[in-house]
């Protein structure tokens, strides 16, 4: 699975240059320009792709690393109410 991550990214970069919708002013559902809809869709696909990359190509040497004891349990996640 790891080996297909980078070819997939290259494919997405190629798909970003969508010359096939370049001059197409079609409105999907009467309001959504098809060129914009395509790129909004590409953003969602990008999120899905990066989820796949995180699951399948995460660097194992970093996954194994634990939080340092000095910081454990003391997250700066959110201010106290």
């Amino acid at each position, binding site marked *: 699975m790891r080996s297909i991550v980078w070819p997939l*990214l290259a494919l*997405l*970069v190629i798909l*970003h*240059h*969508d*010359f096939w*919708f*370049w*001059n*197409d*002013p*079609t*409105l999907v*559902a*009467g*309001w*959504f*320009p098809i*060129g*914009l809809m395509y*790129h*909004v869709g*590409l*953003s*969602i696909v*990008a*999120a899905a792709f*990066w*989820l796949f*990359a*995180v699951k399948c190509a*995460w*660097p194992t040497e*970093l*996954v194994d*690393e*634990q*939080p*340092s004891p*000095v*910081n454990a349990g*003391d*997250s*700066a*996640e*959110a*201010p*106290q109410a």
Partner: protein
Amino acid sequence: MTSLTIIGIYLVILLLLGVSSNRLFRGTSLDYMLASHSIGPFLLLMSLFGTTMTSFSLVGSTGKSYAVGIGVYGLMASSSALLHPLCFFMIGLKVWRLGKTHGYSTQIEYFKDRLDSQRIGWVLFPVVVGFVIPYVLIGILGAGGTINAVTQGVFPEAFASSGGGIPAWLGSLVICGVVLTYVFFGGMRGTAWANAFQTTVFMALGVITFFVLVKGVGGKEGFLESMQAASSAVAPGKLSREAMPHRIYFAFLLVPFSIGMFPHIFQHWLTARDANAFKLPIVVHPLFVMIVWAPCVLIGTWASAASVGIPDTLPSAAILGFLVNKHSGEVLSGLLTAGILAAIMSSLDSQFLCLGTMFTRDILGRRGGDEKKSIFYARLFVVAIVAVCYGLALLASTAKNVSIFNLGIWCFSAFSALFPVIVAALYWRGLTKAGTYASIITTAAVWIALLRDADWGNNTHYSFLGQHQIVTLVAASTIALIGVSLMTKRPSESTLAKFFPDHHRD
């Protein structure tokens, strides 16, 4: 006056948030500059997103779409959605690990070690700071201008010379003061909290503004009918990219790589609690980009229809404000202004803190030693940086021949040109000290030469050999980096073994 009250309340909340974060301050310079590497996934996501998105994401995207149509989204948003996470994944993670292992707080500390060169900072520091400062000025000037625009006529006697609105210099001063206060007291933790709050604000207000404006622009009873009416009134050319040259669109793919060398993004990466904290930003960043940009691009495109009634003389940066004023009340106008200021300040705070950290660590050379003194110097430098940037912003606002906003785009191009340096440092053992010097100096020299050729940024259609300047800059920097590195001596074996753990096995 309602708008001003809302902005005032917003700024007070920010101040309280920044000052209250000081309660968790551990009294060390590591805590002040890097929040003791304690930032978890949510705060890292919000900090990185808030820092990379500026007022251009709300106001600029609407104005640019008004001018050129829906192509702006592909040009700047979907490319960032795809490539920003790549930078987090391939560079941010590695930088975080090296920073935590070797105790780096700035880019220059890393490069000094990686290249066996104590003097690399002499070249890298002025170049990086020189490219960041115009970016800071854009924020300061934008904040002052926004406050002036929204308060026009509120103080007809006190501020008669600035249209009865709060003068831009005063608005900029207030924003600098607020950001300075929470950065001064809260350091990186305060900055991260403020960024999370501000990112939430500008995202939420962007979406709310969209829903309110749809009916106003479309003019129909139902939501869907209004969107259909708004879209069908737009000229077909704005609903496609027929006016957008392919080469420009392709060149803009290089812009998102600029974040790989932004020193303030570098510093945010170092704050992560662990490697897993990067997962959320990597996955969610593209969705956040979409949530902010898609509504703004649609509104801007719809505004280009003649029926919407945008005056021809209206500057593109004022399109969103004009629509809000026309189709909603003062409350939304005030909220939207708070959202725009949030987008500006969520970048400014990181830049101020980063510059203060760089002066403390890279110029003063304070690593270890008396912690109280280090924090004192870091805060002193943050105050000095804010004061200097504010002074420069005042000067820039009076300059007639230089467009600071166009200069900002040039700065992004420069950081993209420096991107090969960080990639090579992390992944290429063949990178040499001389190759890095050559790449940085080439970037600076070519940047100045092209900028001069482009009438100091005023020629917005400038190209060199038919290419956008970013292509020329990246090509020149990469050729210098690889060419000189291949001809010069690599760092010592011990250095390579330190940064490439599998080096001895080769």
